[in-house]
Every structure is written in structure tokens, then in C-alpha cells.
């Protein structure tokens, strides 16, 4: 029997609405509370180290304090007191220290050409007089508008290295991430986090800039006090401790037919290399007030950035995270696992930024969160299908190598947590919704 069955058994009794003892998966808090300022709940996991992510990993969720205010909202409050002129001076000092005078690149800006990386690279070059090299880890499957925005970014004045991983390896790792973790975006995140430091080593550019800090979206506040990104996110000392798609590197080579060269693009940087180069990874969001909506305006103004032609399924927005066709599924899976869909992420951010108020956020979440992403579904299922012809060895690991709607839905159900979901009369519904 192949390790990945055609159909997973769902114990519906656990999801009965009358049942009092409700198991919480993923180490999530058993009782659900929503932030009183934004719309996020205490179920939202904070950033984790993806290459250690296994199916039994426990999540650490965003912290809500005694007044039921989340860390991300507290961070916003704290930022109101920041002396931005002082931070700007710090950034200028950093740039002065690294600025090249001999025609070489002096900083590395990883990004997709979305609004945030557009602003980061553009500001560094045109406002701070730096000479950035931009590097891009390709999305799983570009949207047409995402590809056009990527081109516009480069044409706004930057050299760029685009790293596009082997499509078959990427598909297989993504399928495994879906099966093991219900996390279709993981292969992208892995490469995104490790590419820049590795490119920095390759090109001998010690200074790396990212745009905003994930802490703003709920990582512990302590993470944010220093601009320097913690090494744990992008380097690992020991290859044997690395998991991709929730599968150990050893299993990937013995059971799934991958070779070391296939895995290299996903593996984190070698800490010794980073250390000898003296690499520093900084967030521009530490030095300047980062407002996603303003980034959109800036990118439109300076690069002709285009919003997507329709709202993204599961939310109302058209300007953020729009370049990967698999993204729709990424947020659908967070909705299934944590009860938090794309509209919750978008609305929470826009509430904190002062673009919408909480009532509006609640209305948007109630209307859009968790909507099934029909538009690219067939294409994504095809992408996730591990056919025997293309993957002679790996295909044997799946009782049903092809993914279709029924397969995906069953898989989704196997990742629902009884403390979040109830199942009655053939219908799934969330036990708790933001109000």
C-alpha cells in the first residue's frame, strides 16, 4: 500500500456541534479569541522555520494580551512612538558604510517585483544612492499580471537574477507539502528565504535588504527590535535535520527519486559561509514606516505596477500577493487549518494601517474568507498531479497520483481541527467567527 492513500478516513463524530471535548490540532490554543482591534484570532501561527516543518510540528500562535489585543496591533501602537528621522539616519549610516564606489553591487534586494520589493529596491537606489542587485525566486506558476509587474520592476532600473527551480521537483515538493502539511506555498517560502543569503555569498555582497518585517503580522515583538533578520530562518547547521515538504532529505532521495542537485535550491545557506562573508540581513520596515497601500501607490507611480484584474478569491484585495497562481490555495489552506483565510490577513493589515476600520474588516471577512478558489483550481490540481510518466519513482508513493476536486476536499477535511470546525447535515461550518 503506498504511503499516501487515495482517501483519508475522517472521524465526523469529532466534529459534532454538540460535542464538548474538542481536540485542537497543531498545538493551537483550544479556545478561540479574536483580537479586539483587528480581525485576527489567537489561532494564527507565527513564522516558523520551514525546513524543520513536519506533520507533527506544533505551532506557536500569535499572542493576545489580557485585553485581547494581538501582538501585531501592539506593534502598530509601539511604532507610533518611533522616531523615524532617527531610523532614517541609521539607514543612511548603514548605506554609507556599504556604498560601493567601484562599480560593484553594494546590496542585495530579494523580491518578486510586487509592490513591496519594488519600493525596497527603488528607494535604496534612487533615494539612498545604493547599487542594488535584485534576486527573485520564481513563483510556482506566474500570473500574467505578476509576470508583467516583475518585468516593470527590472525596467525601473535594476539588474536581476531570476531563479526558477526545476518544475518537476517543485511540483513534487509542493504535492508532499500539501499531503503532509496542507501547505501548498511551502516550496516557494523555502526558496524565497534561502536564495538571497546564498546569492549574497555567491556575489560577495554582505548587505541584504528585505522589505517589511513579518513581526508586523504577529511574530513576537522581540523579533522586531533589531533590524537584523534572525539566522534561524535561513540557515541550518546540519543537513540531516532538514525537511522539505515535511519529508526528510534522506527519504526524498531514497523513496521519491530525487538527487542532491534537485534539493540544493531549497536548502538553507551554510552558516559558515554567511559568517565568513559577514552577511547582514536587514528589514527596511525597521528603518522606514512601511505602509502596504502606499507601496502600491509608489509602485504604480514609479513603475506602472498593475493591480490584478479581479479580486483574489477569498478576499477583496487586488494589489497584494498577486503573482502566483497557487497563492489562492495557500490562503484557502490556512482557512481550513486555522480558520483564518485571506480576507482576515488582508483586513487585519489594512485595519492596522488605518485604511479600513474594524467594522469594515469584519464585514469583509464574513463575506469573503474561505471562499473556494475556483479560478485556477483545475490548473493547480494538474500541477499537483504526480504522474507516472513524469515521476516514475515518486508516483508509486501515491495511491492516486492525480489530484482532483474530490481528492483535494477529502485531504482538506483531514486537516480540519475539531476545535474550529463543526460538521452537521453534510455542511462544514466554523464554530467561531469574528464579530
Amino acid at each position, binding site marked *: 500500500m503506498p504511503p499516501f492513500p487515495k482517501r483519508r478516513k475522517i472521524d465526523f463524530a469529532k466534529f459534532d456541534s454538540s460535542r464538548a471535548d474538542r481536540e485542537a490540532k497543531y498545538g493551537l490554543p483550544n479556545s478561540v479569541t479574536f483580537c479586539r482591534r483587528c480581525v485576527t484570532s489567537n489561532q494564527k501561527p507565527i513564522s516558523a522555520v520551514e525546513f524543520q516543518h513536519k506533520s507533527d510540528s506544533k505551532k506557536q500562535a500569535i499572542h493576545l494580551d489580557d485585553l485581547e489585543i494581538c501582538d501585531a496591533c501592539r506593534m502598530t501602537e509601539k511604532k507610533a512612538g518611533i522616531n523615524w528621522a532617527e531610523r532614517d539616519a541609521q539607514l543612511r549610516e548603514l548605506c554609507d558604510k556599504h556604498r560601493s564606489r567601484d562599480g560593484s553591487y553594494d546590496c542585495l534586494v530579494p523580491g518578486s517585483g510586487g509592490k513591496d520589493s519594488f519600493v525596497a529596491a527603488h528607494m535604496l537606489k534612487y533615494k539612498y544612492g545604493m547599487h542594488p542587485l535584485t534576486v527573485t525566486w520564481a513563483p510556482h506558476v506566474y500570473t500574467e499580471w505578476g509576470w508583467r509587474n516583475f518585468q516593470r520592476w527590472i525596467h525601473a532600473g535594476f539588474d536581476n537574477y531570476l531563479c526558477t527551480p526545476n518544475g518537476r521537483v517543485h511540483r513534487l515538493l509542493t504535492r508532499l507539502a500539501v499531503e503532509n502539511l496542507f501547505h501548498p506555498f511551502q516550496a516557494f517560502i523555502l526558496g524565497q528565504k534561502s536564495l538571497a543569503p546564498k546569492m549574497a555569498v555567491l556575489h560577495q555582497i554582505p548587505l541584504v535588504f528585505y522589505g517589511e518585517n513579518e513581526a508586523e503580522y504577529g511574530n513576537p515583538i522581540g523579533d522586531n527590535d533589531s533590524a537584523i533578520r534572525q539566522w534561524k530562518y535561513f540557515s541550518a547547521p546540519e543537513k540531516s535535520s532538514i525537511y522539505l515538504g515535511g519529508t526528510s532529505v534522506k527519504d526524498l532521495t531514497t523513496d521519491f527519486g530525487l538527487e542532491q542537485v534537485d534539493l540544493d535550491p531549497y536548502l538553507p545557506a551554510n552558516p559558515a559561509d554567511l559568517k565568513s562573508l559577514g552577511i547582514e540581513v536587514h528589514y527596511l520596515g525597521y528603518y522606514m514606516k512601511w505602509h502596504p497601500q502606499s507601496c*502600491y501607490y509608489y509602485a*504604480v507611480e514609479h513603475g506602472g505596477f498593475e*493591480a490584478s*484584474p*479581479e479580486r483574489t478569491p477569498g478576499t*477583496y484585495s*487586488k494589489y497584494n500577493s498577486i503573482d502566483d497562481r497557487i497563492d489562492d490555495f495557500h490562503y484557502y489552506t490556512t482557512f481550513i487549518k486555522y480558520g483564518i483565510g485571506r480576507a482576515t490577513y488582508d483586513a487585519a493589515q489594512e485595519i492596522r494601517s488605518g485604511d*479600513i476600520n474594524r467594522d*469594515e474588516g469584519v464585514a*469583509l471577512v464574513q463575506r469573503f474568507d474561505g471562499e473556494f478558489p475556483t479560478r485556477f483550481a483545475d490548473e493547480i490540481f494538474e500541477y499537483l498531479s504526480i504522474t507516472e510518466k513524469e515521476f516514475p519513482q515518486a508516483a508509486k508513493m501515491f495511491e492516486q497520483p492525480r489530484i482532483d476536486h474530490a481528492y483535494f476536499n477529502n485531504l482538506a477535511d483531514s486537516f480540519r481541527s475539531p476545535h474550529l470546525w463543526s460538521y452537521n447535515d453534510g455542511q462544514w461550518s466554523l464554530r467561531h467567527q469574528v464579530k
Partner: protein
Amino acid sequence: MLDNLPILRLIARLDIKGSNLIKGVHLEGLRVVGDPQVHAAKYYAEGADEIIYMDTVASLYGRNNLIDVVSRATEHVFVPMTVGGGIRSVEDARTLLRAGADKVAINTAAIKNPTLIKELSDVWGSSTIVLSIEAKRVSDKKWEAYTDNGRERTGLDAVEWAQKGAAQGAGEIFVTSVDQEGTKKGFDCELVAEICRAVDVPVVASGGFGSLQHLNDLVTASRPTGVAFADALHYDKFSLKQIRQFCIDSNIPTRQAVSGAEVYK
């Protein structure tokens, strides 16, 4: 050559969210600009021929709260006011018209229920009913009508929809180009021309004004009866006086008044 054109109405467009005047780009990234009353009063004083209030997010949020904005506006705006956003029934339209609106504009509700156009025009006559169309280019000379502030596809061809709406009794077509809106890169002149060609009722063009040349391009390509300005006015890039003076200088026929206050008081 331009002398045969109908008089072009210069319209100030105010997109409203809650109690705020807002503005986006491609109807996205909605930014709070200020107090709609302050802006409306200014545009009126500068000689706007009409003010249009759009609660563009009424459908998005499933609400309707322009009534207060409209009734307050009647105190200091004395040019025709068109109000759109979240009108789903004859009753909704009545409330807004009673509050002081001269015309009502509908989009989402009309797409969901095209007979609403007829119901409304049966009660108040066509001249009170504006069909608002958010059109996005899908291919060469093809546009799709959107709802929910340029977010939701409908599958309807925008030009055919304009025709159908006019046939149902809409007395005016207000067409916004989602592609050009907020970009300051010029109107989608082809879109406006196609709609002008397709219907006999007045057409108002919205979305893309960023320079006076754009206005010239628009009236050279077709003959809309009105043109809406938002970004250029809200961010003080142009005043309506400047725009009107340009029309006079370029022989684009407009109402020859420089101040709304002078004419209507």
C-alpha cells in the same frame, strides 16, 4: 469642427466610504482623502456642472449610508447631484432622492436584477436613472462589466450591457474604466467611443484624467456629454476653473460660467 459637439458637462466625482472621501488606483488601494463636504463645496464654488457621489464600496460591504452625506451636501451644493452605491430597490432610490439627490446611479443591483432599471425609470422617468458601468478591457475592443468597485467579474460585455440598460430605461450611462481609473494616464477613449456609438442616451466618461491633453483626446475620439474628474481635483493637480478655461480655449463647448455660485444662487 468641435462646435457641433453637445455641451460637455464637467463633473466632480467623489467616491465615498463611510464618512470619508476616498480615492484609489484601478479602484484599489482606497486612500482616505478628506471630508467630502469640504471637497464638494469647493468643487461647487469652482463651477462644477454636477457632483457625483459614489459609495463605491456599498456593495462590497453590503451597506448603504450615503443618506447623511447627501442631505448635508444639499446645504451648500446647488448643482445637480447624482448618487450611486448600494441602491438595491425602489425604496433605496426614494430615500436618496428625498434626501436631495437629483439622479440615482445603479450598478451591482442592476446586474443582478436588470428589471430594477425599468422599475426605477417607471417611477421617476429615465432622466433620473443613471446606469453606472465599471468596465475593464479584456481584449481589443472588448470590455467586461464589473461590480463591487472593480472587483467582481460579471461575464457581461460592457457595451452590450450599456445598450440593454438604455433599452430598459436608463437615461444616462456613467462609464468608469477600471484600467485607467486613478492612473492619470488618460481616458479609455475607445471604450467611451464604443458606448457612445451603442446608445442614444447621454454618456459620462470617468477614469484616467491626468492632463488637459487627455480631455482633448477624449472629445476628439467621441462625444460624451459629460466627463468626471476625481484624482486631479482631490489632489489639487487641476481646478475645475482651469479645466473649463482649457475647454473654452480649445473650442470644446461647455457651460460658460466660471462659478457655480454665480449661476445658481
